[in-house]
């Protein structure tokens, strides 16, 4: 057996290794380039109080969660009870970004199924969503005291994600001065 003749087999085995790892990955998930970067600035009106607004700088100094949601979003229903649970623990402010929604629809949805948000802000034309690189709702951003994005959850926050990822990260960020 000549060594040269083994080259095709070797190349093939490398390929198989990559394919095998590929099987364990989700090709739909696109990691955000915003991790560890300053959160994009925004100033939006509040959903419940349209005369008041909320800006990024209002959240400076605290660890908080930005949750992107919409009344038309089916997957948001999946995480709703988890968010309500999180709100009850009063760990951190949860700001809802009501993404590309009608104000009445958003309010009706909160009224019907409970409001986990400290404040919700209305991003009716989706511009803030674009700034945050939102491509599928729901998405959640964990932002630290200095205003940097530390973690992004793409898709619903499940109980598992909450307990095993989010809460440890929140505690870690809150303890860091």
């Amino acid at each position: 057996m000549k060594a040269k003749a083994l080259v095709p087999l070797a190349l093939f085995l490398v390929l198989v290794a990559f394919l095998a790892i590929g099987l364990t990955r989700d090709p739909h998930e696109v990691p955000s380039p915003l991790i560890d970067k300053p959160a994009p600035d925004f100033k939006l009106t509040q959903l419940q109080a349209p005369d008041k607004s909320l800006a990024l700088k209002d959240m400076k100094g605290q660890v908080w969660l930005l949750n992107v949601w919409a009344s038309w979003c089916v997957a948001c229903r999946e995480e709703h009870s988890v968010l309500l649970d999180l709100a009850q623990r009063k760990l951190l402010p949860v700001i809802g970004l009501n993404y590309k929604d009608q104000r009445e629809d958003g309010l009706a949805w909160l009224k019907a199924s409970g409001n986990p948000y400290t404040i919700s802000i209305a991003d009716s034309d989706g511009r803030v969503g674009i700034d945050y690189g939102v491509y599928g709702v729901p998405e959640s951003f964990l932002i630290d005291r200095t205003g940097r994005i530390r973690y992004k959850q793409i898709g619903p926050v499940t109980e598992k994600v909450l307990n095993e990822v989010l809460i440890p990260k929140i505690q870690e960020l809150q303890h860091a001065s």
Partner: protein
Amino acid sequence: MIPELGQIALILALCVALVMGVLPLIGAHQGNAALMMVARPAARCLFGFVMLAFMCLTYSFIVNDFSVLYVASHSNTALPLYYRITAVWGSHEGSLLLWALLLSGWILAVSFSFRLPETFVARVLAVLGLVSTGFLAFVLFTSNPFERLLPAPLEGQDLNPLLQDPGMIIHPPMLYMGYVGFSVAFAFAIAALLSGRLDAAWARWSRPWTLAAWAFLTVGITLGSGWAYHVLGWGGWWFWDPVENASFMPWLVGTALIHSLSVTEKRGAFRSWTVLLAIGAFSLSLLGTFLVRSGVLTSVHAFAVDPRRGVFILALLVFVIGGSLLLFAWRAAKLSGGGSFDVISRDTALLTNNMLLAVVAASVLLGTLYPLALDALNLGKISVGPPYFEAIFVPLMTPVVVLMAAAPFLRWKGHPLPPFLRKVLPGLVASLIVGSLVAWAMGALSWRSALGLALAFWVLIASAMLLRERLAERPSTSYFTRLRGIPLAWWGMWFAHLGIGFFIIGVTMVKSLEASADVKMQVGETTTMAGYSFVLRSVEDVHGPNYTASRARVELKRDGIPISTLYPEKRIYTADQTPTTNASIDTGLFRDVYVSLGDPVANDGWIVRLYYKPFVSWIWFGSMMMAFGGMLAAMDKRYRRLAERHAAKAAAAVAAA
């Protein structure tokens, strides 16, 4: 009852395939004729059982048997009969069964090949039997189309609306005929490796099978491209999508293979390379199956995903490809040798092109899998799309096309350079001039359009010169006799190469002259583009058998004269509420005008997409011509006669011994 019958037929088919994969192999190894004799009848049985299973599934679709999960998920009573039949291969499970059916069809055809030595046939059928075993096991264990759904729902869901298109009726069978057809070339190569005899005869036997498979694959890819053009509504015909690449890679390697086989047949040279290509073409077909069905890559065409399937096909890949490459490594030492040749010779030209085609295929593979590899190494996610593939493809394929048209003028083994240059240089120069002039006259003079047209004209001019040279060979006879005297294999080559010329014209023209516009139109409004005016006359609601649609009436005019009326639709299929765009196209020899209807906007307005696509149909015409060439060459009697003579010789030798 019928689904159970199909189920049993499939199980029996698996058993037969296993027997066919094992016994003849042992027989061939030990010289046991009785065991080898199992192969042919087993092949026919296999086909019978798979056919029966396929018919059972088709029957379940026809009678709307929603107690079968696969039928209930992909068909409903409102679906017209012809789409209920094609829905059989509309999704993963059924298309896999179609794959198995076509594979057993090729096996059946091989089993009727009496011109080859018995040992060789036994080995070929055994290899094919093992491949079948793998696929049938895959169907039965991970993707059973006969799985029941009890209690049966009253109504089924729907066939993917994108697949409810006439192009979809024949695209998958043709594509699979190609993919699966390469399994025959593969089996021939493995059988030859097993026997240790890879000679000119092996190459000659392989050629017609490989050519036929290649022609089917060409038709399949062409239909797929035409389908995307008609159905996806973006006016594109090739997207370098992973699934398209998955079909294009075996095509490239298959193209290299049919040329390499001719070198091996005529000159006995580069046998290990030819064997590697034969393994490669089928391996890439299998890899394509994996990419489409495992969900490792996202694609507009991908099937629904189940991780178990990915693992199973990966195991199958390791077994089939890994096994054959191991065998190759073991036997490679026996494969060197062959006639020597000069730098300027047809041998060199063909093999250079072979190398380049393989490099292109490898590059497409690299581009397709690079994002996957980076992700696997946690280096981030990137996309590799059309800009990359075009940047790689054009510079690599340009020399291939130049050489392709020049190679037939060269003699095997060696050719003096000056007379060759005297022959081809005028044509090359002429095509450069004509190409640039035409590009300039069309108002699209650019580096790229001039190069594309020059290449195309070079192919056309060279083809004409080649035919003239061929006809000059026997000056004393009539033209008709001379035309008839040319073997089909030569005609096949001629047509296929000419088809590439037409194809390049189409691509270059579309790329350099196409125009498009995305406009908001009110009913009654007129828009102009590329010299055409479009009047949106009305938008009405229409009802199809299983969809409702908004259908626009767009009047197409040129210089104020009405040319035709187009009816683009936006359909909503009732069963799953998916919207689709059905473009309406005014097809012409020199241009297509393509209109697709977007979303409604306020006040009776609509988003309308307009495309002007010059020479776009030449792309498919050229490709079909290539496939036609492949078929002609596959039918050349020479292969059969030579094979017959060889078999007779072998028989005589056996008798003498």
